Structure formats: C-alpha cells, structure tokens
C-alpha cells in the first residue's frame, strides 16, 4: 500500500479500519502509523471515541417477551 501522508487519506483509512473495510496489509500499515505518529494516534482515538459514543448511547427500545410472543402467535395462526 502506498503510505498515506495526506490527512484526508489517513482519516479515510482510519474510518475504513473502524468500519472493518481495510485489507490486512492496509490495516498493518495503518496500525504501525498509529503507533508511531502522535498526530495519527490522536486522529484514530478521536474517531474511535466518536464511534463508541454513538454505539453506546443510541436509544435501543426494550423488546418485551409479550411482543415476541405476539409475533410467534401471529405467524402460527397466519
């Protein structure tokens, strides 16, 4: 992989890495850059914090057992 040196390219790589969309070679290169470069490390941490914040704070309605049973009953009588 060509080493990204443009901040936009690096940010795109970070984003793709967190999305699980980088191939193994690009992952290795990115993680090496994160370990070696404080600016890239900070960019990585900020993006990861953002993703974690979204994932852990989004509202997830509680699914009741009654609701599940209603669905089971409905498909059985359908």
């Amino acid at each position, binding site marked *: 992989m060509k080493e990204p040196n443009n901040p936009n390219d690096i940010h795109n790589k970070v984003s793709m890495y967190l*999305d699980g969309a980088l191939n193994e070679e690009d992952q290795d290169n990115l993680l090496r850059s994160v370990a070696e470069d404080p600016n890239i490390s900070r960019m990585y941490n900020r993006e990861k914090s953002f993703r974690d914040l979204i994932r852990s704070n989004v509202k997830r309605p509680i699914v009741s057992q009654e609701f599940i049973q209603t669905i089971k009953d409905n*498909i059985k009588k359908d």
Partner: protein
Amino acid sequence: MEDKPFLSREESIRIFEKELLPHITALTTFAYHLTLDEADAEDLVQETYLKAFKSIEKYMEGTNAKAWLFKILKNGYINDFRKRTKRPNRVDFEDFVNYHDSDDDNNSGFLDLREELFDQLMGDEVTRAINSLPIDFRTVILLCDIEGFTYEEIAKIIDIPVGTVRSRLHRGRNILKVQLRDYAEKQGFADPRTHVSDPESQDGAGKEELK
C-alpha cells in the same frame, strides 16, 4: 436467494424461531430510528416478521438472516409504512445538506469524549442528533455504526452503490460530529483542539451527488 424445496410448517417455524427471531432487538432499534415512535416501530417489526415468515422458503438456512430481515424492514418502511403514516419521503434533504456544507467544510472537530460524566450527558443528545439526520444519512449510520453491517451489506439492504454508502457515512458522521460538538460546547465542554487543523475540515470527500 434461490427457492428451496417445500418446507413443512413445523420446519418453517423452527427456522423462524432459531434464525430470524434472535434479531428482533436490532430490528426494533432500526425501526424505532426510522419511525421515531416506539409503537410504530413495533408495528413495523411485526409486519417485517410476518412478511419474512410468508417468504421463508426464499431464505437459505444458515445465511445472513439479519441482512435479509433488515432489507424486508427497509422495503416495508419505504413502500408501505411511510405512505400509510404520511411520513415525508425526503425531508428537505438537499436543503439540509446545503445548510450543513459550511459546517462540514469548516469545522468537523470532535471532542475527546472519554470523561464518563460527559458520556452520560451525551446519552439523549446522541439519539436526538441521530434522529434529526435526514433519513438517507440516518439509515447508513444505523446500519454501519450501530448494527455493524459492512459497506457491501448496506449497499444491498438499501439498494445503492457502495461508493454512495461511504459518502453518506462520511457526510452523516460529520453532521453528527458538528451537532454533538455544538451541544458539548453549550454544556461548557471546550475542546482545546477544536480549531486545530482537522483532516475533515479540508475534505472534499462526500461531496458527490447523493442518490
């Protein structure tokens, strides 16, 4: 998916309960953030499961049940549910994008949110910010960041190219960052790096025409 040999009713119910029902929490979360109403979300999820059961012969056991269900739910929302509930199709989409272009271009800095207190303060605001996004951005963020689907899976679920998935994610996340940063600043959390050069602030990505 290819059709399979006829399934007995018992076999259909077994597959339904073993492979489809376990995704009910994820489906309900997705439905809630589409409909913005818990009762509507339950209706949509119930309709999704009924449609899935009627089409269960098209489902190949052991394949990606979650993606299949999400596609049924998304189609149901667009084709039936939204029309019935008179939800707008595209909520001022272009206006919204244009309005946020300046934010996107100038400052998408995001606070380093590791303080537990701040994390708690952000709880409701995260949901409000996500729900305020136009549906096209909201959908990809929910599918990628909340449900962990790949770009390719998202492209299939919502019938758009992978490149469009990526550009919508990029733009949607930037809008979210701006909203949450603004909220954080109003709460008195200042980020010393807010005005530090940010790659996203110079970024031209995500500006292509969105479908």
